[in-house]
């Protein structure tokens, strides 16, 4: 997939071969979100990290679930509201076939009902899109380690 926002060939803080090396052994991530800009931006953000590799993305739940079950990534970043099959249903499908999948919801909604539904569907974490970008990167790492990343304030009610 072409990515105009992908970092240049010589990031200031590492060499290209180091990046490729890290990507091969790093955390593999699939992004499922219907917004092009979010997918592109997340891919660019995560690809800058030497230990994270975005191995695929999808614009809706149905193809997202199929892609995840096919690629078996370490972490899935899943939007909730998408046309067609939404994030909750996609998460259910993934977890049903692959119970150890680490799906982290990434959404703009913070309603307690949605948090509860997402966790019930099998999500491991719940992040808000207005969280600091570095928090998203850290959440991917935490989920990969088996943790349950949650944006501060979510799930307290």
């Amino acid at each position: 997939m072409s990515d105009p926002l992908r970092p240049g060939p010589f990031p200031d803080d590492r060499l290209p071969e180091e990046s490729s090396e890290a990507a091969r052994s790093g955390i593999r991530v699939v992004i499922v979100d219907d917004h092009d800009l979010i997918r592109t931006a997340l891919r660019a953000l995560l690809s800058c990290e030497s230990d994270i590799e975005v191995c695929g993305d999808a614009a809706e739940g149905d193809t997202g679930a199929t892609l995840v079950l096919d690629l078996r990534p370490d972490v899935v970043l899943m939007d909730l509201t998408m046309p067609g099959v939404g994030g909750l249903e996609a998460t259910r499908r993934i977890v049903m076939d692959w119970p150890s999948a680490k799906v982290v919801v990434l959404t703009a909604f913070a309603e307690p009902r949605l948090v509860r539904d997402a966790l019930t569907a099998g999500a491991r974490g719940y992040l808000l899109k207005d969280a600091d970008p570095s928090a998203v990167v850290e959440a991917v790492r935490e989920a990969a380690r088996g943790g349950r990343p949650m944006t501060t304030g979510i799930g307290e009610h």
Partner: protein
Amino acid sequence: MADRAAAREAPAPVRTPTPQPSGVRAAMVRFTLLSLLGLALVTLVTIPLAAWIARSIALLDAEDRTRVFTRTVAAPLLTEATREAPIGSPLELAMENRLDDGTVVHVVIWDRDGRVVWSDDRSLIGSTYPLDAEVEDLFESMGSRSEYSLAMHAGGADGVPVLEVYAAARDADGVPFVLEWYWPTSRLEAAQHETLVRILPLTIGSLILLHILVLPLTLDTARRVDAERARLAQHATAVQIMERRRLSEDLHDGVVQDLSGIGYVLPTVSRELPPGSTGRGLLERVAQVMQQDVRSIRGMIADIKPPTFAGAGFLEALDALADRTRAQGVAADVAIRGDVDALSPGARALAYRIAREGLRNTVRHSQASRALVDLDVDADAVTVRVRDDGVGPAATADVDPDRDHFGLQLLGEALREAGGQLELRAAEGGGAELVASFRPDRA
């Protein structure tokens, strides 16, 4: 005891929206009051009108009878011989018969010179008086005239109401004369009474009948108008909810997503710039502002997005309301008693609206640090109290009633529709207390 004393000294409610009758009831009350007013006016007009009609009829009747008597009885009996010796004449006999049967109070027969030819007051016979111009005219026209009078000319008692009739004719010798006849008013009063008895039930009865006939129509129209008003209000609310939902979805799907995406891009772009460079610092600052903006838009979306009250949505909506109030500086809590699950969606929406309005007032006017929403549900009544520890309703002098109480007025109307009421009062121990209750089966 101290508590009881405190309770007695608790300040009286400072603002209680005046209860207003429903549209139908108000229309019927207006209609009935106007009908009664119309009835009173018609009665007031009918009584003098009936009296006037009776008087006119009595006058015409008296004039007619006098004219007939003058021409058919008096004229043939008035001869030269009678003029010469009226006492004991057949004319006097005929006149005395009428005086005896009470149809006449006082009679005078005049000749053209103003001389009294005959009168029941014998002292007048042969005397001469100046005639009124109208009476003189009768000698020419051979007509008659009548009037209602409080005085009797040419004798009789003044101050006794009588019908005064003059009728001209030619006597047996062809000499013109005028007979002045005073009828008693007993006939007039009887006629007046009879007219009133006939006219008044007719007019008032017609009005009452009209009222009875129009009443169902008015009631039906008022109900239709009320139903239409309710339908329009529901429609307006539905449109408002739809618009708010659409707006919140548009904001979420468009601006929030784009800003979030840009927020992820910025650190990536920033890394491309040399550490410590102006551009990198600027981008990091922009990224922070972007995050704040996204959070604030997300808060706006939460405010405008219509809450969902089905299932656990109601309690979550109340919690979210408390969250937003806390974010505005007032520590708000929600306490619930009773079976909330039994409430209909309409009752839940109304209870939520009371809580929202109460907390909104608290945030705007109370200067409070804490607020408590207390929801009490039972089968017959839902009561919502919103209490705060602020300055109390009496101290909010800067309140603009039009702007700040509009929400409360609308809420009051909604509550009355649901058989309830609303009161904003000073709470015991300080602060303000909004207390609203309604019937869950009517919400």
